[in-house]
């Protein structure tokens, strides 16, 4: 068995490329693993992880805080879980979410706790 | 017959002694490693405060001036992190747990020059302050009715 777990495969992409890339990955038979957001000083850093035959591939993109990005729920419907989470906890804005809980996916005492806007 | 697949086990159990441990009538025997509550051999403690700093739940307060070491029992998660970091190895994780209580128990250990080991409870809320030192102990066998009943039956 190869030591697949050591392969990390972070690929930086531009926000505009996202949908296209994701569509390609789906066509190649990749499965969505997860998506997560990190608040960095320049804005958000978002990682989409995919898996094919136990090999990991991560798309990484940085956006300024105010920028809206395309939802990938049109390609991978289950991504609604992650997008809603990022929306609720970080305040990332998505366009065309297939299932939008409207800020009520995680009901938290303060809005976007990872990105306090006091 | 594909029905009654569990029949054998059920009938066997009916006539066998039940698996029930009969706690608290029969006290539980702890494993050697069982993590119950933290005990401080206070006279070895040098009040360095490392345990306080490393405790993930902030359950400890070390007061160098008063030579006291305080643990909030209802805040400690028995992770033994403090035990591991203590330079004097005066902390131990005993395998008996803190008795459930109607209060949030706080225990303070104060190093005393005269007595080898003293435990003076600094219970914050008044009601139980008058009672004897409330160091954690093996859970007393509850004296309530229901339990006695059980005892009677077990005999």
């Amino acid at each position, binding site marked *: 068995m190869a030591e697949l777990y050591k392969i990390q495969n972070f690929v930086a992409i531009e926000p505009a490329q996202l949908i296209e890339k994701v569509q390609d990955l789906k066509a190649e038979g990749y499965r969505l693993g997860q998506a997560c957001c990190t608040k960095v000083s320049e804005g958000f850093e978002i990682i989409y992880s995919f898996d094919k035959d136990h090999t990991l591939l991560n798309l990484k993109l940085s956006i300024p805080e105010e920028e809206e990005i395309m939802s990938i729920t049109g390609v991978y419907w289950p991504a609604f879980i992650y997008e809603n989470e990022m929306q609720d906890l970080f305040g990332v804005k998505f366009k065309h979410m297939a299932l939008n809980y409207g800020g009520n996916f995680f009901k938290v005492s303060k809005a976007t*706790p990872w990105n306090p806007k006091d | 017959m594909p029905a009654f697949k569990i029949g054998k086990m059920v009938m066997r159990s009916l006539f066998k002694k039940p698996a029930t441990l009969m706690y608290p009538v029969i006290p539980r025997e702890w494993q050697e490693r069982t993590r119950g509550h933290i005990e401080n051999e206070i006279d070895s403690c040098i009040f360095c405060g490392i345990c306080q700093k490393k405790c993930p739940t902030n359950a400890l307060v070390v007061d160098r001036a008063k030579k006291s070491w305080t643990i909030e029992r209802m805040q400690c998660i028995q992770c033994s992190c403090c035990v591991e970091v203590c330079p004097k190895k005066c902390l131990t994780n005993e395998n008996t747990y803190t008795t459930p209580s109607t209060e949030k128990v706080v225990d303070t250990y104060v190093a005393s020059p005269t007595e080898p080991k003293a435990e003076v409870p600094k219970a914050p809320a008044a009601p139980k302050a008058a009672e004897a030192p409330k160091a954690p102990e093996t859970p007393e066998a509850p004296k309530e*009715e229901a339990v006695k009943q059980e005892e009677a039956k077990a005999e």
Partner: protein
Amino acid sequence: MSYVTKSPWVIHYDGSSCNGCDIEVLACLTPMYDVERFGIINTGNPKHADIFLVTGSVNEQNINVVKQIYEQMPEPKVVVAIGICATSGGIFKECYNIMGGIDTVIPVDVYVPGCAARPEAIIDGVVKGLGVLAEKRAAMDKKTAAPAITEKEEA
């Protein structure tokens, strides 16, 4: 004598626990611990319950649920907070979405420490709760205005 101590039916609700305490509560019902020995039944319905076992702490979303379950239980009733999370918020105390232990929203009668609370501790806690239950029942008879709940200060 009050029968309420001989037939304490429980309801369990998981506030925002990690499961550790929940499965220990469930384990109490199973053969090894078998709390049905004390007449305990897990009812799953607040209207039938006498003892409210809460695991985990309170957060924004479950606060009303916890309150509602408590309110829907008929008197006399007892709340047992199980695990460090339920008693004080535990390791998650500092999380942005944790409001603290169960006693921040409803009166808690017994605190059961442990992370996770051991089944033995849970049994002890429930047995301790029976005493409170009996008192509350007696208080109901006397029609004393205030039930036997004494608000405890935060440690």
